[in-house]
């Protein structure tokens, strides 16, 4: 009885949700027509950070893995496309595909080493592997431009203008978000959440825990690479800070802020943080202070994030492991 009610509810709510998304997408598509250039650029940055945070959340919120250094995949995606566009004559489309692929490959290699461990040890191991990648990029002047980074990347003219890069980012992130949504709601995604909630029991019923975690690493790294490629189309440059640990922590904050047990939470978190940085950053150079205070209040009072908090009052609550603790 309860089940039937909830599916009926789910059907009507899915319709409403679809409608709401169509409206949002339509609004986002129309934005460049009436918003000033700066805000279009800001929106593109929000979409990219949101995509990156969502890809992080695949591993962090849904997989329960302490993804401490997710920015590495973002940065590698950005560097791959920049280097291929600048130093080879291959068709640009190939470079754009190569970014996510190389990121996924790195995710596979790092995942192979990291998934042997779990929780804090997993995070620490990923942190050390990621910092090795970062320091190599930081130092390899002849190939990556060292600490200066690569500037003036020749992005194809169709997507290099403010509006062009915005539409490219919008379409790509919608497709990527849809793909992640499908993956997370497939049997694979369900098993992943089962592993998060109880790895021992999952193993007991015959789930290959480490294999699922490894695949998750590759998926998360792939979409982070997509976000990295989009970053290059918007900014036209890549620099070592894209792989820095503090950026990784910032992405984790986005997930936490929006709600890391919800699908769209990280996007919301990214919107809050990127706007905060850009808008408060105009008035004061101490915008990180505001971020820190928000973060502290969040940890004290809203550990499930903004969306997670409101979801608690929705009629069909999604199960969140934070309540188990």
């Amino acid at each position, binding site marked *: 009885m309860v089940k039937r009610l909830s599916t009926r509810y789910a059907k009507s709510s899915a319709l409403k949700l679809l409608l709401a998304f169509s409206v949002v997408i339509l609004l986002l598509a129309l934005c460049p027509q009436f918003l000033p250039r700066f805000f279009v650029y800001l929106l593109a940055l929000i979409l990219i950070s949101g995509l990156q945070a969502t890809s992080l959340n695949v591993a962090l919120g849904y997989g329960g893995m*302490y993804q*401490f250094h997710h920015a590495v995949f973002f940065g590698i995606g950005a560097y791959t496309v920049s280097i291929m566009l600048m130093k080879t004559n291959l068709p640009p489309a190939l470079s754009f595909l190569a970014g996510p692929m190389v990121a996924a490959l790195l995710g596979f290699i790092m995942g192979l*080493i990291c998934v*042997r*461990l779990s*929780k*804090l*040890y997993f*995070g*620490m*191991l990923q*942190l*050390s*592997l990621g*910092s*090795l990648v970062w*320091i*190599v990029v*930081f*130092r*390899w*002047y002849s190939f990556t431009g060292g600490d200066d980074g690569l500037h003036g990347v020749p992005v194809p003219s169709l997507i290099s203008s403010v509006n062009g890069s915005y539409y490219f980012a919008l379409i790509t992130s919608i497709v990527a978000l849809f793909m992640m949504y499908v993956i997370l709601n497939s049997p694979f995604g369900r098993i992943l959440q089962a592993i998060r909630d109880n790895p021992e029991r999952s193993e007991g019923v015959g789930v290959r825990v480490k294999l699922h975690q490894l695949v998750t690493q590759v998926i998360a790294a792939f979409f982070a690479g997509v976000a990295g490629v989009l970053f290059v189309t918007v900014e036209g440059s890549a620099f070592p800070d894209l792989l*820095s*640990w*503090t950026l990784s*922590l910032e992405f*984790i*904050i986005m997930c*936490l802020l929006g709600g890391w047990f919800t699908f769209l939470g990280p996007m919301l978190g990214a919107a809050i943080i990127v706007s905060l940085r850009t808008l408060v950053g105009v008035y004061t*150079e*101490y915008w*990180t*202070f505001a*971020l*820190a*205070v928000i*973060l*502290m209040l969040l*940890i*004290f009072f809203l*550990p499930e994030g903004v969306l997670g908090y409101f979801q608690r009052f929705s009629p069909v609550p999604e199960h969140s492991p934070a309540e188990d*603790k």
Partner: protein
Amino acid sequence: MDFSTSITLNGLIQQFLIGLSRTTILFIVSSGLSLVLGVLRIPNVAHGSLYMLGAFLCYTIASFLGASSLGFWLAILLAPLVVALVSLAVERGLFCHLYDREHLMLLLFTFALMLIFGDVVKAVWGSEYRSLSPPEVFQGSLSILGMPFPKYNLFLLCAGPVVAFALWFLTQKTKIGKIARAAAVDRDMVAAVGINVSWVFASVFVIGCYLAGLGGALVAPTQNISQGMDHTIIMEAFLIVIIGGLGNVWGALLGALIFGLTASMGILVWPQFSIVFPYAAVVIVLVFRPKGLLKATW
């Protein structure tokens, strides 16, 4: 550059000693981090900020007291104490409410602290570089096997073992050290026998942060004091703690040796990539021993 002629025995020894003095700083900072991680289970990202704060305070106190060497020694003494006081306030005010949270939350919370400390330092000291000269006794350099070696680094080489001994004495021989080690293993049991665990945690946290401040104060005369010091040191300290084994103070020593020496020896082999060597060493260690070289406390 021809490698076979550029590496001489003297150069090797010189780099070894420079690496050892860097190791001293790394050990002091990362042992504090390890202590906090081992007993309180807080991955304290703000540890590097306390190191930076120690360096800036040392600079300010020393320049306030004048250029005399007495001022310098007082600064080395006072700066870590001020850092310890700050950390006591933070622990009693904020952390003691959060001990039962997940590691990820604690990590992000300390990251928020790191951002705040970073902004405070920016507001108080501005963004330009500061430098502090060592007291007259340790100015200049003396020659070891024909190679110049800064006298101040010799002082650092002596400070390292002193701190290591003090830590050993504190954790193995004193009552609070014994209680802290017990609390690291099973805090509920320690509380059950009637010990106020909260205050044990507070003292361990303060000692750990004192070490961060001490590291910062000691490093002040050897490099530019600037913002961003916190970012580099916290990364290195974390890696050292990871390869040493979480919470193991001797692991921190071992890790600091590996990290400090590979960096300084790397300069002889491949100067451009010298900084890459310690990171590569960390990864190699972790591929074979993912939980660190020595036994973690938890």
